[in-house]
């Protein structure tokens, strides 16, 4: 191997230096704008509960689940999100059908239990996440004036894989899915969501 540099070696070395500088420069430029990690979030004000969250998520069981905000819930016995008010009434006159096709909205009695009339009670409504598909039927039924609007669709981060491009974000007709910065999750945290068409 000769001591002097061959032309090939010189070209290689120059290109290498240019390449490293270019990569380093671009990386530095972008790093100044780099954020902490961003996650996807549903804006409950814009969400229309259109059922696309169930089908557009890349996971077979969507990472979007219904969540009940207990402080807003009415704890009603005739919950429009729990029972399908158009279904056949049972012998006590209460609609027998359920809104949730997976029977994921569960309820339990709280407070004083009326032994003579089991339906004259207040109920705590919770969502069974193992069953919930994120279809949004309960969310739609809970919207005012029929309900209090305490149920909303939310992306659950223990299930969300964190895709580069959220499959639901692309299809959402009301652009209700935005990317927000963590920590401090809130719909208003991000200075503008992902500018998708």
């Amino acid at each position, binding site marked *: 191997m000769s001591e002097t540099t061959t032309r090939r070696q010189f070209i290689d070395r120059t290109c290498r230096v240019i390449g490293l500088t270019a990569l380093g420069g671009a990386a530095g430029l972008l790093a100044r704008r780099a954020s902490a990690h961003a996650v996807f979030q549903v804006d409950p004000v814009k969400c229309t509960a259109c059922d696309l969250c169930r089908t557009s998520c890349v*996971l077979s069981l969507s990472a979007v689940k219904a969540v009940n905000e207990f402080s807003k819930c009415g704890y009603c016995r005739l919950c429009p999100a729990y029972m399908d008010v158009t279904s056949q009434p049972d012998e006590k006159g209460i609609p027998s059908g359920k809104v949730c096709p997976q029977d994921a909205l569960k309820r339990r009695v709280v407070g004083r239990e009326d032994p003579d009339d089991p339906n004259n009670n207040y109920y705590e409504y919770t969502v069974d996440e193992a069953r919930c598909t994120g279809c949004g039927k309960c969310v739609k039924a809970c919207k005012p004036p029929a309900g209090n609007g305490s149920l909303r669709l939310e992306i659950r*981060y223990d299930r969300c894989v*964190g895709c580069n491009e959220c499959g639901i974000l692309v299809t959402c007709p009301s652009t209700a899915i935005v990317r927000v910065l963590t920590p401090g999750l809130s719909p208003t945290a991000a200075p503008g969501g992902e500018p*998708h068409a």
Partner: protein
Amino acid sequence: MWPLILLVLAFASSALLAQYQRKPPDFGGTYTFPTPTHPEPRASVERALDMVMLGAGLGLGAYLILKRRTRAGVVLLSIAAIAYFGFYRKGCTCPIGAIQNVTLALVDPRYLISFGVLVFFFLPLVAALLVGRVFCGAVCPHGAVQDLVLLRPKKVPERVDRVLRWLPYVYLAVVVLFAGWGLPIVAEGGKALVGRRFLICEWDPFIGLFRITGSFHMLAIGAGFIVAGMFYGRPYCRWLCPYGALLSLCSRVAWKNVSITPDKELSCGLCAESCPYDAIHDFQADRASCVACARCYDSCPRHVKLRRGQPVALKLYRRSQAGTGVS
């Protein structure tokens, strides 16, 4: 006048709605209102771990490929990469997809790019400038899947390969276009028909395998690439991967590259026969197309690997020489 009427109406309707808001009764201290749980997104420690694993994989890969020159080591590292970056991280974040994020970040200053994505994009490129396509050989889960399913590598005709070799660059241009600007085709309703899309993510062949779920077209493409990969080595890497195009450009001028023979070249051509990716030209690894799979080392007669007291490659060499009548 009108704004005032609208304002009054708005207040009135919200007052009407408020009267419909049902409040639960005061349970008198026997019941505390629960707060809904909000699972935390991936902790920053775990995201840092991803970057550490990437760096470690690249470093270890470079050591195993260039220093230890062992195929077995590369296979083990590939399996570990499939386990971590493939099945555990479900293939996301990957440097291939990061092309789109970086493009979008350069085009649109509003776009929030994550620091981890930057590391995933730039680190393998820097590594390629220094030690060649170590990422392809040891760390990329897509490449590892194809490398491990390879059964009987067939040679692709030179004419076909000459055309296919340009596809990664074409695909790179297309994905950069779609990630940065999209195609401004507008439908009747005024909504853009094909806006900005992350094509790499939508058409990734192996992500369905790693997520163990997916739409029909993704699973079908994945199956197609795996079947093709059994006979034509690494079809995605050689003829489609846009990141491979970038790595290939960097690897051409790499500081250290795969040198097949430890000392002198015999011009026997055994290495070229063993390479499933047609990456050996003139008895040397072609720096652009060598994916650092480390298969060629064991075929070199100078690479002594003792088994039952005799170098294996030397046996092969002598056998090939005996066939041609030269002792």
